[in-house]
């Protein structure tokens, strides 16, 4: 009696899943399988790469890109690989904006300076922030809610044997380095994260805002800046940067009660310059959705143990398996949960695995690997 009531919907879901294969795009722009997008293997100037994105929010808030080839608008300028992971919050607008504009800004400053440097990357971040804040100002009367949207921003640039990592927010890049002593590959975290759950970040905020006792608040067992947001640095979040956006017509729930004179969040990235070592094998760039479920070493071990083709997709699936286990369900059943509701199980997850092939790093001038790819490019819901 009861059985027939629930069974058809399970079967129905099965047919729908099977049918989703029809959406598959060509391999050039990656492929789509339900809420999972992946580019299983591609080549950049310095080796191979693999990308994957899983959507959890009803509108994908994670954006990402990989650009390989000239890093400035000059022919004689620097050449290399650029990776960007942008984990949006409050909506997809800022992460999309950064995906469209940050690399162009980097190219502009690299052309002016005739090189890639920590300063060039920093300038590109701040210019993108300024451009977005002017867009918020311009749209203020018709779309005030744009002031409440922001994005974390993680960038990696490989150029002339150097790796630049710039981060604002809580995405992370981990380096896999061959270790002869343990006969494996060890995980080395390269990015500095700006999440209020780190004590150092809370201390930094308290010292920057000595008069505000409510600058960090514990809520839902999670530390949040002003009880609102977990990250202390981002692009966007205009209402936490400038008082002019912390007022009507922006809805009260997006506003901070007391007016502020100093920006609460900052868009300035932490930058690290790393000289690529012959033992450096690969980099795993990912939004915090991955690191919530996998440790740095677990992720590095997976990349080290399986073929390169589809490795980013494998990492995403490994994280989803953990997520399903935490929610006391089977991985196969997690796939039946639709976007939006999925957010109760995991966040949007973006993974970019960049292999560093030492032989191709030396001949960085090879123009054959000009690539420009956007994560989730084939998603029916991504734009």
């Amino acid at each position, binding site marked *: 009696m*009861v*059985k*027939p*009531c*629930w069974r*058809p*919907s*399970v079967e*129905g*879901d099965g*047919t*729908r899943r099977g049918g989703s294969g029809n959406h598959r795009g060509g391999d050039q722009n990656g492929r789509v399988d339900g809420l999972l997008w992946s580019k299983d293997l591609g080549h950049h100037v310095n080796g191979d790469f693999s990308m994957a994105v899983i959507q959890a929010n009803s509108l994908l808030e994670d954006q990402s890109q990989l650009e390989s080839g000239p890093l400035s608008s000059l022919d004689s300028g620097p050449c290399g690989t650029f990776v960007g992971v942008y984990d949006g919050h409050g909506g997809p607008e800022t992460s999309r904006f950064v995906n469209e504009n940050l690399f162009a800004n980097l190219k502009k400053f690299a052309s002016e300076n005739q090189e890639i440097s920590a300063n060039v990357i920093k300038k590109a971040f701040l210019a993108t922030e300024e451009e977005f804040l002017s867009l918020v100002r311009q749209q203020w009367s018709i779309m005030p809610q744009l002031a409440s949207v922001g994005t974390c921003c993680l960038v990696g640039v490989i150029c002339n044997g150097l790796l630049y990592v710039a981060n604002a927010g809580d995405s992370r890049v981990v380096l896999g380095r061959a270790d002869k002593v343990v006969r494996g590959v060890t995980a080395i975290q390269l990015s500095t994260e700006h999440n209020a759950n780190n004590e150092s970040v809370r201390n930094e905020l308290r010292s920057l805002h000595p008069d505000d006792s409510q600058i960090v608040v514990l*809520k*839902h067992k*999670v530390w949040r800046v002003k009880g609102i947001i977990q990250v202390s640095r981002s692009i966007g979040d205009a209402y936490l940067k400038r008082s002019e956006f912390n007022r009507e017509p922006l809805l009260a729930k997006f506003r901070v009660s007391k007016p502020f004179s100093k920006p609460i969040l900052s868009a300035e990235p932490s930058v690290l310059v790393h000289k690529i070592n012959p033992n450096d094998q690969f980099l795993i760039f990912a939004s915090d959705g991955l690191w*919530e479920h996998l440790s740095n070493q677990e992720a590095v071990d997976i990349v080290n143990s399986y073929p390169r083709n589809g490795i980013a997709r494998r990492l995403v699936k490994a994280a989803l398996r953990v997520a399903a286990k*935490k*929610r*006391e*369900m*089977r991985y*196969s*059943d*997690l796939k*039946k*949960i*639709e976007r939006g*509701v999925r*957010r*109760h199980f995991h*966040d949007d997850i973006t993974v970019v695995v960049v292999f560093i092939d030492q032989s191709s790093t030396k001949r960085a001038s090879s123009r054959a690997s000009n690539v420009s790819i956007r994560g989730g490019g084939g998603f029916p819901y991504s734009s």
Partner: protein
Amino acid sequence: MGRRRGFLLKHRISTLFRRVFWRRFLPTVHRRLDPTQSTGVKPFSGLISWTNRLRTKAKAILYKNIESGRGYIRVGQDPLLEKPEPIPKGQMAVYVGQKDGDFQRILVPVVYFNHPLFGDLLKESEKEYGFNHPGGITIPCRISEFERVQTRIQAVQCTRKLLSWKRTSRSPMMY
């Protein structure tokens, strides 16, 4: 050695028992969760809950020795079999209850999560605990209210079933 063999045999019997009777067990799990059954046919549901209790007790006796002899009996065992009750396919556990009271662990069909009525419960969960609540999904509402939502979802699914045998699961959104 003889003792150890005894345990293994017990374990195997229980596994075999579970595999053979798995399909037959499933409906009872559903009936137990199905509020229409428990409210509509009282004596029958009483019998079911009695058999369920009996089964749980029997299992507890069967597993008691294994638990106490943990140190050596687990060596070489399939870790999947260690859990006394794995989550059945197509279902997941949620914890339902109110702040001060006890939370009840309830198995629900995974497809319910895509239903708008269930979505309302999930919104409450998000308000109370956020998305990153550790462990199972916790729904802050009275058991009775939760059961009412389940009944309504089930009713809709049954109607749909009558209307069309081969509808896809997109339809819960359009019901």
